[in-house]
């Protein structure tokens, strides 16, 4: 009803400015992956991509911990929380890669599984990809990867595979599994912040105050 009326009116106005067939062809060309613009300000290759990524993270005041493999995660997380004076509690998704880790090696760390709750202090996510261009982490939602882990806790820890660090957003999107789109795709660039009061940046506006990356250099 009103949708048709709105679209008919819109179509009528557009028709005045150019033939319908030509317009449709232009849209089809745009949707065709081969006809797309390539805006690649961050193009870099190989080790330069990783270097750029870590530089951007540090500029965003994101702490970066490089680990030789995922097996080192429980101990690294436990000692990170201890050194930062944070509660030794962690909330994570049901991700099989995390399930397989020997959490028992970090006996002082309490690990809860599932979506985050208001009282959780630290959330752990595994990024699908990361973008060197701006130090951006790409976290896709899934049953094993609840979105709330990235927003409710005060501290957000993100695991990134060095092999999944790419130069640009477009490459990160290409790394994701084929359609459909994940329900939520979070492009995270630094922790939550606001400059709404007096123009001064304050961290932890509504989301996490702290963002920390564990970069896995697995062979």
């Amino acid at each position, binding site marked *: 009803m009103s949708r048709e009326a709105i679209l008919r009116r819109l179509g009528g106005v557009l028709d005045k400015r150019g033939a319908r067939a030509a317009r449709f062809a232009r849209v089809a060309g745009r949707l065709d992956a081969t006809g797309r*613009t390539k805006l690649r300000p961050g193009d870099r290759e190989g080790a330069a991509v990783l270097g750029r990524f870590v530089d951007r993270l540090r500029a965003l005041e994101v702490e970066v911990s490089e680990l030789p493999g995922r097996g080192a995660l429980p101990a690294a997380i436990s000692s990170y929380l201890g050194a930062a004076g944070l509660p030794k509690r962690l909330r994570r998704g049901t991700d099989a890669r995390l399930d397989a880790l020997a959490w028992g090696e970090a006996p002082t760390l309490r690990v809860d599984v599932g979506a985050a709750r208001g009282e959780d202090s630290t959330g752990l996510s595994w990024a699908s990809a990361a973008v060197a261009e701006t130090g951006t982490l790409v976290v896709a939602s899934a049953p094993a990867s609840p979105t709330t882990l990235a927003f409710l806790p005060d501290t957000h820890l993100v695991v990134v595979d060095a092999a999944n660090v790419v130069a640009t957003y*477009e490459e990160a999107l290409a790394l994701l599994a084929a359609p459909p789109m994940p329900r939520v795709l979070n492009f995270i660039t630094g922790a939550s912040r606001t400059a709404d009061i*007096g123009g001064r940046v*304050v961290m*932890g506006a*509504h989301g996490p105050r702290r963002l920390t990356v564990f970069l896995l250099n697995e062979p």
Partner: protein
Amino acid sequence: MFRRKHSELHVDRDLSTPAAIVAEARGVLREKFLGAQVGITGANFLVAETGSAIVVTNEGNADLTMTLPDVHIVLATIDKVVPTLDDAFALLRLLARSATGQPFTAYTTLVTGAQRRGDADGPRHSHIVLLDAGRTELLNSDMRDVLRCIRCGACMNHCPVYCSIGGHAYASVYPGPIGAVLTPALAVAEPYGATHLAEASTFCGRCEEVCPVRIPLVSLLRQWREKAITAPRAWYSRALLRSWAQLASRPRAYRALASIVARALAHVGGRKRYLRYFPALSPWMKYRDLPAPSGRTFLQEFERRKQGWRR
């Protein structure tokens, strides 16, 4: 305002720093986020090829809004639709840099529908409400270039007028140069009601220079001024303009009247030299005092000083 609105918190708490104010807002609003049943957000972009909405914040407030409640509603106008993800990311690159100078906004979220089978969180229902809200009309007009706007605010931040008078003076959700163009264009019911906003410009052109999507703001502002001149006017406005024209074309009469008015206002201004009330300016005077004239007109003052130089 915080002390008045958050009366349940301790009266003598410290609110002297931005960090303390942010922490209090976070605490109070967190409860509201956790308790809400419906979350409403806008969208910075809507992507046709995937059906996704893209919402951008530095705080993460939109993410709590769209993740915690049972229902998520996106309200957005049709000009937010872009064809592909690639188009959206090209614009996202421009948005953060132009808005705050950040390389990328902290949270850029692509949301595509409601909770899926097995998901541990997310809303159970999701809706996108597409609004026309005057956009088709705008597309059909000579102002269509404004539909490219991505709401970065660069034009405001570089506008000398906006920086002096602030956003509230525009009496619209769209302040600054883009507001001066957009507000009258969207006021379908009263098309000439907000054209005066275009007068608040020096035409310095900085807005146009910094606009990442190259909206010709200066010529659009000029168009509004031209429209305002040819617009039908009320009888009192016509009468006022006519008598002004009469007076302005008679220098002797103008000087005589100006001299009387300047002296009268200086007298009213008193020792503080401020006017608290002025006929027809009461809405403006509600928050401001008007500096009173010195008692002499510009020409009288000029003559006086010229004599001083000769001496």
